């Protein structure tokens, strides 16, 4: 049974990666999961300088999902490389550093520094973050800004470059094409959907930040749809995420076009979610006589002409 997949130059043993921000720097889950069994580890989002993040409360449960407004708290690229990377190097698993900035310069600075470090195998840039220059606008909702920031990062790194797309857009396929044109080796989607919740007794937002990102099973239908739209639009691999809780969910994303998947909120529900999902994918392959997982990519059968 062959579960290996390729994302750009990166060869993964299997298509199951961790979703950024839900698996810490890897060490937090090392007690529950043999990290060497994973397709890849994607780190918490890193910025050039450490970030404090948002005040609490930062999370709230919602129907079949959760909202988070962590505010991209992280220890910064420098400390990550010094304090966290050595631990990950013990394991036979590709490390993908997720990073962001609130200006193009910060994106480029972080990418440069991460590319110089030993032991980082790929970069995932999170463009669902506010753009300081443009005020409230988010990088990943404007095609021109997306092109500019991805191109700028592409120029400074030879590592496999994944662009993580925001679902809060009218046309996700267009954003994916822009990322591809700007030199991305892969796209990853979906990031969280912006949402909000109010405590009706206090009349205050349940998150100190007022709005936050919705993740978990609630958003799976949105993620699967967007992966399918993007799969039809680009030639580069697609990494699917959003509500993947089981091997079946992972297979659903792959049939929609994902070459690999990222598991996020499920880790909180079941700390062994990632390896359970790998087992689930194997079970599906065995039950359906599938020898090579890549053969199911985009294997959705459909025929309506007007789609």
């Amino acid at each position, binding site marked *: 049974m062959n579960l290996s997949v390729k994302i750009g130059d990166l060869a993964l043993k299997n298509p199951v990666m961790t979703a950024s*921000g*839900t*698996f*810490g720097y890897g060490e*937090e*889950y090392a*007690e*529950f999961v043999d990290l060497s069994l994973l397709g890849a580890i994607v780190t*918490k989002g890193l910025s050039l300088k450490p970030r*404090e*993040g948002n*005040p*609490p*409360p*930062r*999370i*709230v*449960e919602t*129907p*079949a*999902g*959760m909202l*988070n407004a*962590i505010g991209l*708290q992280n220890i910064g690229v420098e400390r990550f490389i010094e304090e966290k990377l050595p631990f990950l190097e013990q394991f036979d698993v590709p490390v993908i550093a997720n990073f962001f900035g609130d200006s193009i310069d910060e994106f480029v600075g972080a990418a440069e520094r991460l590319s110089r470090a030993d032991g980082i195998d790929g970069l995932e840039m999170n463009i669902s973050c506010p753009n300081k220059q443009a005020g409230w606008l988010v990088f990943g909702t404007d095609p021109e800004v997306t092109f500019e920031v991805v191109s700028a990062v592409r120029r400074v790194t030879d590592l496999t470059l994944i662009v993580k797309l925001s679902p809060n857009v009218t046309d996700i396929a267009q954003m994916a094409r822009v990322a591809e044109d700007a030199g991305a080796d892969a796209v990853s989607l979906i990031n969280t959907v912006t949402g909000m919740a109010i405590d009706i007794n206090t009349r205050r937002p349940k998150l100190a930040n007022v709005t936050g990102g919705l993740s*978990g*099973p609630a958003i799976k239908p949105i993620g699967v749809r967007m992966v399918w739209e993007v799969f039809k639009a680009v030639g580069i691999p697609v990494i699917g995420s959003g509500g993947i*809780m089981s091997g079946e969910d992972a297979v659903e994303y792959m049939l929609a076009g994902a070459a690999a998947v990222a598991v996020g*909120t499920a*880790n*909180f*529900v079941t*700390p*062994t979610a990632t390896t359970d999902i790998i087992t689930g994918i194997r079970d599906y392959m065995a039950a359906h006589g599938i020898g090579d997982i890549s053969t199911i990519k985009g294997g959705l059968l459909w025929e309506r002409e007007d789609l």
Partner: protein
Amino acid sequence: MSRFFQAEVTGNVLLSRTHNILKITPLQPHTMPYPGQFYLLRVSGTLDPLLRRPLSILRWDEDGLEFLIRLKGRGTLLLRNMKPGERIDLLGPLGNGYPEPVDGETPILVAGGVGIASVYPLIERFRPEVRLFYGAVSAGDLYLVDEIRGLTRNLHVSTDDGSMGFRGNAVERLTAYLDGSSVPSPVVYACGPEGMTKSLLGMLRRRGIPGHVSLEERMACGVGACLGCVVETVRGYRRVCKEGPVFDAREIAV
């Protein structure tokens, strides 16, 4: 030994319309807790409610673990309705727990409401003479009083409505106590609602008394990965599930 294990519900005692004690027996090897630690319990097998619920460990032995649960919302309702024989999975013990007193320190325990669950193991640890200040809204909201009396003779009960013990809260009672008697090098161990914690911290600060306070915050992962459960401390944001739930009273931002 594992911190993620399956268990069977072996008992569920309804203490009142709002509180129950859930007893579970692990079905797999598991790590033993120490006082002040907590577990994340999965409350349903479906996708809603999705997240685990944090509960302090109340009692434990070779056979099982016990939790004191106050009915708050959907999750605690599901836990209240669990029947012996049902399966449940747990993540824990998590967090740091209460540190030992340093030489010569006299521990004083303070519990407000269901905060007694967190403090209870310390009564066992420090018995037979440990001082406990235990407050609640009303007499009916005080639980485990008989058991506690079996462990220490130094119990100081207070209720907001005066229906049992001192009228007022546990911190006021403690303040009066400290004014009236001299405790050598007191160190406070406390868990209670936000209001109680705040007034306690103020009092400790004013009197220069050290303390260890257990805090609550919404959690997703419980293992330090999601950064969801932070509280503000003098050293910046700290995770309740990892650096806490017990924090040095001097560290907590006010």
